[in-house]
């Protein structure tokens, strides 16, 4: 917007003009006194530094006793008193000193609504951590940074122990742990445990003008019993996942169409770019080793044995790249080693262990393959060839099993979040086929390059045709499996998978189209055309084959990366009822 200067006839006074200069002392005087803070000296002190708080006003909102065995503290929300002022959110923020720049909040207020034109109903809902009986945050944590107090049941996060993997933000169905980018850790509600220990009410309890929030002692067995029915709160995730202890009480009877105000909002998930790289490349690496391992046992070509060191090297390089990328996802990567402590409960710890074993055995395997190869050519001192053969074989098995085990851990990591889009079966097929597709593509291109270099292109052609066909079949299967979610568009309920399908068809449709297009060209068209050529005669030149296979490999890699991005972005996270 362009606004003309005020009428040009009226000139701006010069700062040098004597009249203007005359004003300086008064301006300076006011500017000085503006900076004086006078409240403390000017007014009588009403409260002394020693004055203790008066707990009277909330004494009925917190328990008089500590929980006994089989009991714990829990939030109780009187829905009839919650009228949506949201004071609890800001009180929690200020009385707990949460991060201002990141607008950190540990409480939130959502809205349920429904009814009919004649009898409309709306209900605001305040929510925070539910201090669950079976906290998913705690179970998922690879470094045991969560503690559930045996005495109070409060689930506390150990900020200094956290490595910032953010896995708890995926496992908690209630969006409770909040990731702080500047700190590289998550933080969460601790029910103001030390306030309670001191006879003070938690910030939110103190601050609710309508006394809607209180702390009660709940019977653990009772909480478990109540979690058998999906009656926690309309629109909330099933209490069966974590057994939340908060109780929402009301004397009203909600209509059956009571839904969260954000129910129809279909939100994209977080991107988690380092995880995309890590997942795809670990699967590529494992796939390459496994396919090569199988090929050796199915094919008798000498070029297979001779190309093994190269296969191993490529697989290893990709694997190490993947593990490197995975640390980028950590807020505090230098503490990644702490993951060893979480093996008992965390699939992330197990994943790290499995891929660690995979990387270790792959390094040894690759070294041994190269040793053998060099030995065969120039003769090296050392281990007897027969023993060495057995060792290579054993290491090969170790690489394959630890790698597959690692992928299984990756699968479980997402499966245990309970998200339908990440279910064990669906994710297993997805990750497995990625390993197969990329393993085949890697093996194809590596074998071909080696065969050309060794002048054994003829030998390669025979296996190449089979591998091309396998690649095309695997790619088609993968596309079909991935695409099957679109059938959920016809769901009558707005299910998690329907939300995913809506995202894929809506906001993410360009990305999804690119993924399918790239896979069809790189994974189906190119391999089939090449197979046809290779089968016919040697009409196709070796250089062309290398180029085509490289293109196919790169295309498939890109395609799988996009697929994995969609795995995160199209995932519909469970959550508590939100506001419009």
């Amino acid at each position: 917007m362009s606004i003309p200067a005020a009428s040009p006839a009226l000139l701006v006074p010069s700062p040098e003009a004597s009249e203007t200069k005359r004003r300086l002392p008064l301006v300076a005087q006011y500017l000085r006194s503006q900076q004086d803070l006078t409240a403390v000296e000017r007014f009588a002190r009403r409260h002394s530094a020693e004055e203790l708080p008066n707990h009277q006003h909330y004494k009925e909102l917190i328990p008089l006793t500590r929980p006994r065995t089989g009991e714990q503290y829990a939030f109780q929300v009187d829905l009839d008193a919650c009228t949506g002022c949201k004071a609890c959110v800001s009180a929690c923020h200020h009385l707990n000193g949460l991060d201002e720049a990141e607008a950190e909040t540990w409480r939130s207020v959502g809205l349920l609504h429904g009814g009919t034109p004649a009898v409309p109903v709306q209900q605001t809902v305040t929510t925070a951590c539910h201090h669950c009986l079976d906290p998913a945050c705690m179970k998922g944590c690879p470094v045991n940074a969560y503690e559930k107090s045996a005495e109070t049941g409060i689930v506390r996060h150990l900020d200094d122990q956290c490595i910032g993997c953010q896995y708890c933000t995926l496992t908690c169905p209630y969006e409770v742990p909040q990731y702080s980018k500047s700190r590289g850790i998550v933080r969460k509600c601790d029910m103001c445990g030390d306030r309670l220990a001191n006879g003070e009410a938690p910030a939110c309890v103190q601050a609710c003008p309508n006394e809607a929030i209180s702390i009660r002692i709940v019977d653990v067995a009772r909480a478990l019993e109540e979690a058998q029915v999906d009656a926690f709160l309309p629109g909330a995730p099933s209490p069966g996942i974590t057994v939340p202890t908060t109780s929402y009480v009301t004397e009203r009877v909600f209509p059956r169409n009571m839904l969260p105000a954000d129910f129809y909002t279909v939100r994209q998930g977080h991107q988690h770019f380092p995880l995309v790289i890590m997942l795809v490349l670990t699967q590529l690496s494992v796939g390459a080793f496994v396919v090569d391992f199988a090929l050796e046992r199915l094919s008798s070509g000498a070029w297979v044995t001779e190309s093994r060191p190269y296969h191993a090297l490529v697989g290893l390089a990709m694997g190490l790249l993947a593990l490197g990328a995975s640390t980028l996802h950590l807020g505090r990567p230098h503490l990644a080693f702490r993951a060893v402590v979480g093996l008992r409960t965390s699939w992330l710890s197990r994943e790290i262990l499995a891929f660690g074993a995979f990387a270790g055995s792959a390094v040894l395997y690759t070294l041994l393959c190269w040793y053998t190869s060099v030995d065969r050519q120039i003769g090296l001192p050392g281990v007897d060839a027969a023993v060495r053969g057995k060792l290579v074989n054993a290491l090969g098995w170790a690489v394959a099993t630890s790698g597959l085990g690692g992928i299984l851990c990756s699968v479980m990591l997402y499966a245990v979040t309970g998200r339908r889009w990440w279910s064990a079966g669906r994710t297993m097929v997805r990750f497995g086929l990625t390993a197969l597709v990329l393993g085949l593509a890697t093996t194809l291109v590596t074998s071909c390059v080696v065969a050309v270099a060794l002048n054994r292109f003829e030998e390669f052609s025979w296996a190449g045709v089979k591998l091309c066909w396998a690649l095309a079949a695997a790619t088609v299967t993968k596309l079909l499996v991935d695409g099957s979610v679109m059938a959920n568009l016809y769901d009558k309920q707005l299910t998690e998978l329907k939300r995913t399908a809506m995202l894929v068809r809506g906001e993410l449709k360009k990305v999804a189209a690119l993924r399918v297009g790239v896979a069809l060209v790189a994974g189906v068209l190119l391999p089939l055309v090449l197979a046809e050529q290779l089968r016919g005669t040697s009409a196709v030149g070796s250089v062309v084959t290398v180029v085509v296979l490289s293109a196919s490999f790169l295309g498939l890699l890109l395609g799988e990366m996009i697929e994995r991005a969609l795995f995160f972005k199209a995932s519909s996270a469970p959550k508590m009822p939100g506001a419009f």
Partner: protein
Amino acid sequence: MNRPVKTGPAELARQILHQSDGPLTRQLVRTPGGFGLGQVPERLAPDATTTAVCGFCSTGCGLEVHLKGGAAINLSPARDYPVNIGMACPKGWEALAPLRAKDRGTVPLLRNAHGELAPVSWPVALDTFTQRMKAIQKKHGPASVAFLSTGQIPTEEMALLGALTKFGMGMVHGDGNTRQCMATAVVAYKQAFGFDAPPYSYRDFEESDVLVFVGANPCIAHPILWERVCKNSHSPEIIVVDPRRTETAMAATQHLALAPKSDLALFYGIAKCLIERGYLDQEFIARSVSGFEAFAAHVADYDLAATSEATGLAPDVIERVVDTIGRGKRVSFWWTMGVNQSHEGVRLAQALINLALITGNIGRPGTGANSITGQCNAMGSRLFSNTTNLLGGHDFGNPDHRAKIANILQIDESLIQQEDGLDYDQIMERIMAGKIKALWVVATNPAHSWINQADAQDILSRLEFLVVQDMYTSTETATRAHLYLPAAGWGEKEGTFINSERRISLLKKVARAPGEALADFYIFKLIADAWGCGDMFRGWSSPEAAFEIMRELSRGQPCDITGITGYDMLDDRRGVQWPLKEGEDVEVKSERRLFEDGHFFHSDGRARLLFEAPRAVPEPTDEKYPFVLLSGRGSSSQWHTQTRTGKSAVLRKLYPSEPYVEVSPVDASKLELQPNEWVTVESRRGKYRARVHVTHVVRPGQVFVPMHYPTANLLTLAAFDPYSRQPSYKHCAVRLEKIDAFG
């Protein structure tokens, strides 16, 4: 926690693998705060505290500011404050955040030859101000320069601004943004009671057995007043009259979802029924009320069937309300913008006053016809802004009043205008007509808030000289200014606010203003000096000195505050409600109501029943524009045009970032609108895109938009109440149009 300290390599290894304490943990450690506070974050532990009144709404909550080295580092609601008793809404909790915003003005800005706002020194800004204003006045007459003030600055500053502009600078016209929220209540009270006197104290919320809320949603707009309702131990009947199923309607025992703007007919119908059923306080009417016979005759036409027809409410619903009010021992009537912002708001407010008067529900605990105010100091503006009233609730037209004020201020009586100046809408019209050429806007944002923005923008663009004095350089109005003056905000200066229950409370200087921003008080003093009338205001040496002058100005008025000895007394008593005559005192945390003696401020001591036949809405719906547009507060975390609440990251999280429109599922289905889909909301004056929130909270045929998004007033119709000149923001005709999702 005192754990035994372990050392040794095993412990070190354990620490490395599992670290339960350290710098990150310590960031959130809480410690006993002292000063009666309970635990506070350790890094924000105060070394002193002081109480200041909140600067957002008229509830007037006491906030306990946590200080370190004299500066505010945190705050919590004051527990020993009689208004809020230890509670605050999110805006109060976040009161310090808007002070730290990046777009605070730090130096005066002047629009240069390239049309850009560029920094200038204060002396240059002051001389530019005076030279241009004087030049325009010289060319076009003193009345060619006007000001628009606010309900957001302390009373002392309002009084100084009003005196400076009208007595020192010769301006004739000036009004406040309070015209947009409270003018109706002012006129209604003046006509009915003889003075603008909201009669209640907040304790009445707790003492009623029947509470009637009309066009008010305190759960969202005044959460701390709702807190007081929750403290009512009499299991009260709560009647909510509102077309929408608001949060407050949900909490009510009776919700009357009447047809929009059928309220006047409803209350006349209820009055007739109350009279018929004998639910009257004959003794009170005989002693304290005039005009009953005429009123009874007027409402005789509003029988149950007609009222039911007009309002769309079933007869038994209306009868139940009549019986509830009639049988109630302590009935209170409360209204906010749903009444005030109406084309017939004054008569509507008076219809509620009438119900209170004929049933004797006034002057006793738990009763009253009670207007809940909007802005933190709208009540201060009503008494001391020198716009509609002469300072201290006096009358410009009354020679005795002019003499009294001239004497107190020691100014020439001829400097006081003898007629009222123009109201906000008339000032805007006069700018349009080219009669007003320069406008000084203080702490308000007409380029967002004034009704019918298309016209408002056009009007503002016609000014030769627009001066905006504000905390922020980014408001819709400040970005249009020729001269911008950076103002200190709440918390950066001293003064007093008057809340809805007439409580005068202190605000305190607990934060340093950024750069060269100055308290409005100082800016006014500098302008007085630059204008050449500094001597006239020598007595106004500080806000507290100005308060002394205000006390004198109030002497003998219904709002007499001569008994308030100074800021110390306000601080000690936790605010003092007016009136308090010289020599009187009140206890700490006292809560007082007016009219306990049944004596009103008209010369005959009686309250007047005022009434008039309802008028048709200015813009009824039709085939082309089939929906009624309702507007109002969106959430408790939003305030007006969001110049402050939009600066808090926490508050921003608590409301939708995009404009939205609430639509009934019935209408959504007819228009084939999906939840969350974008639609165009269009009136005859403008249109904008909004997301659809499909909800039964609004009834079929109506849509609701929150007022906080700058687009809302593209739609509204510039219709006004004829007595209060308050804009009717809450009714006009619109249509909705589907926008293709990916188009």
